[in-house]
């Protein structure tokens, strides 16, 4: 298709990598659309929002189909723009407007970086076509390649929500309608990963090892900090958004391993790391979409996303509860679900990279990353025990929570499907991974994956077996005691030191996270304010309010710092336009003289 500029042709092409992402987009968006129909009744919408959603999905597909820089950028920005419009759905609220603006500005700036990266490649290769780039990638000199890599990492990293460029993510995802957040978090940010994979494996030749190491470090940081900030949240959707940051970090760990492997010329490790990354992409798409849809169902039923106001929902919304529980288990990497499978692969990738024994530096970093990954897993577990336990268990903490009803069928079906997918991708991990392995390297590595990734040189995992064992032993544990005769079960009160149990006795999210908040206070910088109102003349408190939140370090030092500097500078420059004709004439005259003198 001839483009709107001379020597510009819009080219589209689907390869293995693209097909993989396209499939994800199709599945998740389809389910989200079904959910949206069921969710119509609550939440604000606007005329044409359906159309915009369709445009959003189409543009995402177009991104993975694009085969030249211009088509890619056009699709990419359309995607950002459509999602921006959808985030803006509830535009009467100022926080929504601010978040949406922040999102679109950051993503547009990121695109600027991508544009520069692309044009630098075009300058070096003399072409805009991706095919030419990969064909001529070996011709690039090292500095150019590194420049392009860094620019691309900034650009795609922002879209992916990589720390410290994640600032927009926990603001934009919560304010969007839930099915949109599901797609944004489940699929859209993955296109940042898609770009990184293309950049590092398709468009650029193998670079120096620090590329991968940088990605590893950023990945580890994103994973740990993401989950820590998630733990500090009690807005359900913000919590989930921070988990997207965490999971992007995990994906980056796999990707970084693959990149280092490529630099060191270790195809086995490249295959392992890339598979781990892409498999986690798929898995995160399933369970994060599921969780966002669940959060939407809760929001619709209770009218708030504040965990503190929920509680006891498992009895009132059993369907949502089961789906959300499965999703939580999957994202906390519990066997035999899919989250565990991909994190296992990531561990193996890191370990084998470390053991490839090139030198101490390349060996130690992956191991530390492994430690970070372990920490992340454990913290994620804590976070979802909190998220599920505090919102679904114990007693309802607000009248609306007490009166909640389960989601409609059209909302439940997509959730159930995704939950089933979490189990299937876990138990069926090896065939899935084999499929990915068959798809992807053909596009990126040239050769096929060298090994069945679940039987690596350094470890083995058979989740079907684990699942089987769990089932059998579980049955045993349930049955065996009966040999000792039957016992009766009596229903009684919960022990609350003799007073009758009140909802406020149950642990709140803030309380639940407190030990971790204190253990990691060096990082999350918690601030607390306690205000005690005493009864007149007594020492007895009439009311005690305790609020704890964490300092928004990145917003303050990354985002706000930049914007404030810009605005300050603008204020200074604007003095030049001082309204005086004489000054303006002086500008004109000086410009003339300067040009006359300087221009030669």
């Amino acid at each position, binding site marked *: 298709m001839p483009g709107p500029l001379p020597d510009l042709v819009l080219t589209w092409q689907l390869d293995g990598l693209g097909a993989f992402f396209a499939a994800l987009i199709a599945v998740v968006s389809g389910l989200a659309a079904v959910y949206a129909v069921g969710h119509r009744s609550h939440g604000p919408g606007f005329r044409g929002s359906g159309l915009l959603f369709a445009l959003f999905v189409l543009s995402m597909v177009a991104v993975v189909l694009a085969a030249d820089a211009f088509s890619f950028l056009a699709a990419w920005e359309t995607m950002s723009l459509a999602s921006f419009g959808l985030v803006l759905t509830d535009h009467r609220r100022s926080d929504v407007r601010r978040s949406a603006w922040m999102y679109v500005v950051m993503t547009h700036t990121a695109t600027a970086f991508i544009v520069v990266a692309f044009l630098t490649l075009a300058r070096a290769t003399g072409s805009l076509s991706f095919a030419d780039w990969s064909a001529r990638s070996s011709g690039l000199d090292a500095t150019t390649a590194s420049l392009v890599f860094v620019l691309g990492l900034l650009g795609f990293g922002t879209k992916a929500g990589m720390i410290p460029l994640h600032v927009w993510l926990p603001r934009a995802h919560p304010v969007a309608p839930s099915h949109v957040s599901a797609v944004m978090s489940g699929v859209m940010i993955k296109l940042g990963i898609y770009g990184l994979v293309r950049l590092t494996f398709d468009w650029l030749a193998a670079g120096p090892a620090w590329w991968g190491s940088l990605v590893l470090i950023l990945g580890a940081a994103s994973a740990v900090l993401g989950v820590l900030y998630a733990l500090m949240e009690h807005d359900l959707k913000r919590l989930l958004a921070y988990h997207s940051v965490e999971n992007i970090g995990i994906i980056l760990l796999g990707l970084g391993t693959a990149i280092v492997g490529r630099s060191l010329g270790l195809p086995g490790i490249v295959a392992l790391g890339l598979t781990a990354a892409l498999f986690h992409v798929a898995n995160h798409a399933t369970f994060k979409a599921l969780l966002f849809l669940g959060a939407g169902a809760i929001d619709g039923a209770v009218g708030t996303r504040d965990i503190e106001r929920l509680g006891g929902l498992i009895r009132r919304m059993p369907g949502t509860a089961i789906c959300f529980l499965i999703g939580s288990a999957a994202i906390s990497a519990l066997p035999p679900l899919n989250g565990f499978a991909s994190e296992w692969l990531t561990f193996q990738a890191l370990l084998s990279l470390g053991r490839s024994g090139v030198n101490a530096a390349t060996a130690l970093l992956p191991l530390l990353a492994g430690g970070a990954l372990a920490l992340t897993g454990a913290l994620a577990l804590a976070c979802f025990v909190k998220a599920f336990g505090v919102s679904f268990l114990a007693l309802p903490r607000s009248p609306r929570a007490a009166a909640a009803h389960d989601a409609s069928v059209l909302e439940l079906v997509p959730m159930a499907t995704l939950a089933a997918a979490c189990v299937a991708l876990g138990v069926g991990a090896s065939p899935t991974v084999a499929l990915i392995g068959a798809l992807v390297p053909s596009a990126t590595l040239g050769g096929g994956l060298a090994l069945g990734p679940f039987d690596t040189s350094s470890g083995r995992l058979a989740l079907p077996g684990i699942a089987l064992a769990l089932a059998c032993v579980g049955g045993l544990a349930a049955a065996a005691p009966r040999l000792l005769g039957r016992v009766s079960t009596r229903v009684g009160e919960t022990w609350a030191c003799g007073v009758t149990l009140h909802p406020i006795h149950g642990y709140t999210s803030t309380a639940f996270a407190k030990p971790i908040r204190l253990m990691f206070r060096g990082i999350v910088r918690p601030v607390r304010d306690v205000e005690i109102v005493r009864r007149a003349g007594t020492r007895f408190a009439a009311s005690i309010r305790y609020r704890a939140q964490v300092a928004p370090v990145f917003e303050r030092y990354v985002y706000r710092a930049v914007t404030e500097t810009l605005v300050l500078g603008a204020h200074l420059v*604007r003095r030049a*336009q*001082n*309204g*005086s*004709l*004489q000054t303006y*004439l*002086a500008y*004109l*005259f000086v410009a003339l*003289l300067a040009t*006359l003198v300087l221009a030669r």
Partner: protein
Amino acid sequence: MIDATTVVDALAVALLAAALASVAMRGLVAGVWLLVVQSTLLALVAATIAVASGVGHMWAAAGLTLAVRAIAVPAVLFLVLGRVALRREMRPILTTRVALLAGVGLTLVAFSAAGRLELSAAYPAPRALPVSLSLTFIGVLLMATRRKAISQLIGLITVENGIFLSGLIATLGLPLFVEIGIFFDLLVAVGVTAVLTMRINEHFDTVNTDALRRLRG
């Protein structure tokens, strides 16, 4: 030929003197009279060249100069001056002495700049082009350092004069129809500014451009 050149040079120097004088003087009426002087000198230049070269349309140029620059324009300006009761340029941005120094400085710049141009072939007066350039510069200086709308007009017309002078001496004037167009424009321009000045005066009860500094940023 030679004498024509010397005459033109002499007139040019006189023009420069007149321009510098209008930098030095702060009375508005005097300023307008100095414009009349400038324009008359220009007309004389045109006439001299007409005599020397015998190019017919230079006579037209001379006539137009006299009519438009020396008579019509000053007339309009006096009209405006009559409307807005105002006689002196108060508190110019530069004191007279500094302004004069600046004027001289700009003249030097003009000479050096024009010196870079190969005008040896210029007919008939090589030394007049730098003068015209410095007239232009001085005009801008006037506009940039005076606060009253009228004095800025005076500066603007000085600029025009400088350009016109260069036109005369360097190229025997532009093709006639272009010339006429330019004169027409000058006339309309002065008319428009007169209208504007009077509107400003009736709206702000002053032609002090300090009042015109509301639009910023």
